[in-house]
């Protein structure tokens, strides 16, 4: 409760400073919690926590099948539409043809030259020439998308996860222009006709909002590891980057790793052990 009221106060003060006369009064009225004065909000007991969540991808454990399973597990469980899915004409009559350029993806494969365009090298080590590198949101420490968002619909959680608030997104796509990793997708249309099997544990999205990897925040809250970790057969490890004892830190200590476009200073939290 304490946190909540401080937040409200800062919000009100901020708005007042900008001088929107009516807004502070409205915010005051809205923050008056409805008879639930003693109600308490908290985390699930089993929730996993970290100072800064990060991901380490061990490229030696990757192969085509693993990479495919990773994408599959993530997309299926987050109700990410697949434009190749045949639409159920009965449920969704007159669905217009899709434009594959408007697809949505959270985690997918890229070849080295595309995943690391600033490290392009004609004499690249043979094993990387045909390997698919899983790429996704980097949950950057200095995330350009968070800075760009005009409504704070994209925001950085205290534990380092860069999240989308689909309720608040106005669909301006500033974050997509800001992201140096192409991690974001926009819902150019209603995704539902293209979801083969809707998973009830996660909402679908509406048209007109941006989406991306959420590091399975909904699973961490239940004490489970992200879907990609489970599907990766050990290739992906997720853990606390700030904890020197954590599995991710041990991996980073023992192996040389790279990050995507390090020179931009965004400080990605996704590491690739090479």
């Amino acid at each position, binding site marked *: 409760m304490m946190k909540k009221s401080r937040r409200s106060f800062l919000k009100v003060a901020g708005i007042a400073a900008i001088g929107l006369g009516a807004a502070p009064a409205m915010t005051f009225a809205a923050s008056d919690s409805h008879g639930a004065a003693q109600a308490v909000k908290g985390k699930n007991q089993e929730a996993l926590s970290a100072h800064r969540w990060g991901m380490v991808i061990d490229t030696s454990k990757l192969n085509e099948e693993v990479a495919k399973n990773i994408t599959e597990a993530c997309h299926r469980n987050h109700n990410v539409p697949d434009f190749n899915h045949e639409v159920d004409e009965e449920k969704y009559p007159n669905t217009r043809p899709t434009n594959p350029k408007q697809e949505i993806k959270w985690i997918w494969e890229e070849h080295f030259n595309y995943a690391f365009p600033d490290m392009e090298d004609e004499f690249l080590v043979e094993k990387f020439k045909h390997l698919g590198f899983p790429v996704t949101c980097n949950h950057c420490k200095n995330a350009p998308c968070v800075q760009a968002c005009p409504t704070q619909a994209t925001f950085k959680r205290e534990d380092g996860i860069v999240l989308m*608030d689909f309720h608040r997104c106005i669909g301006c796509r500033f974050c997509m222009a800001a992201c140096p990793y192409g991690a974001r997708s926009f819902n150019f249309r209603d995704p539902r006709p293209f979801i083969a099997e809707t998973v009830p544990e996660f909402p679908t999205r509406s048209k007109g909002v941006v989406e991306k990897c959420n590091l399975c925040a909904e699973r961490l809250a239940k004490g489970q590891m992200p879907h990609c970790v489970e599907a990766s057969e050990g290739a992906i490890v997720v853990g606390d980057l700030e904890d020197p004892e954590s599995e991710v830190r041990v991996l980073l200590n023992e192996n040389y790793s790279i990050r995507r476009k390090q020179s931009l200073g965004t400080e990605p939290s996704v590491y690739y052990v090479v």
Partner: protein
Amino acid sequence: MNKNLIIAGLAVFVIAVLSPFWFNLVTVTQAAPKPELLGKAKTEKKCVLDKYDMRANHMSLLDEWRVSVVRDADRMYTAANGHSFNMSLSTGENSCLGCHEDKEKFCDSCHTYASVSPYCWECHTNPKEIQ
């Protein structure tokens, strides 16, 4: 000439402005449907707030919940009455729809009557509809 026109215009305006009343005069007004408590909701008898508070304020509560879950990562709500709930509209046993199993009879009947169409269901799924 002008005077007549103005008076006629005013009369039309008044009639038009009061049209909801005329509409109600010629149609039968139905009493608001009561949300039906079915299955688990009927036996449990422990909602987040008491019945009247819930009726009046569930939308604000849901709004508060979504901010808490999405932005603060707090997902567990211990209500003033001591019961704990999973702050979720539709996922899991301990969510709204987990207890109020029938969305049509619990949510939609009232919303349709009040002519409100919350956009929750554009994204959140009704587990029953999926099956």
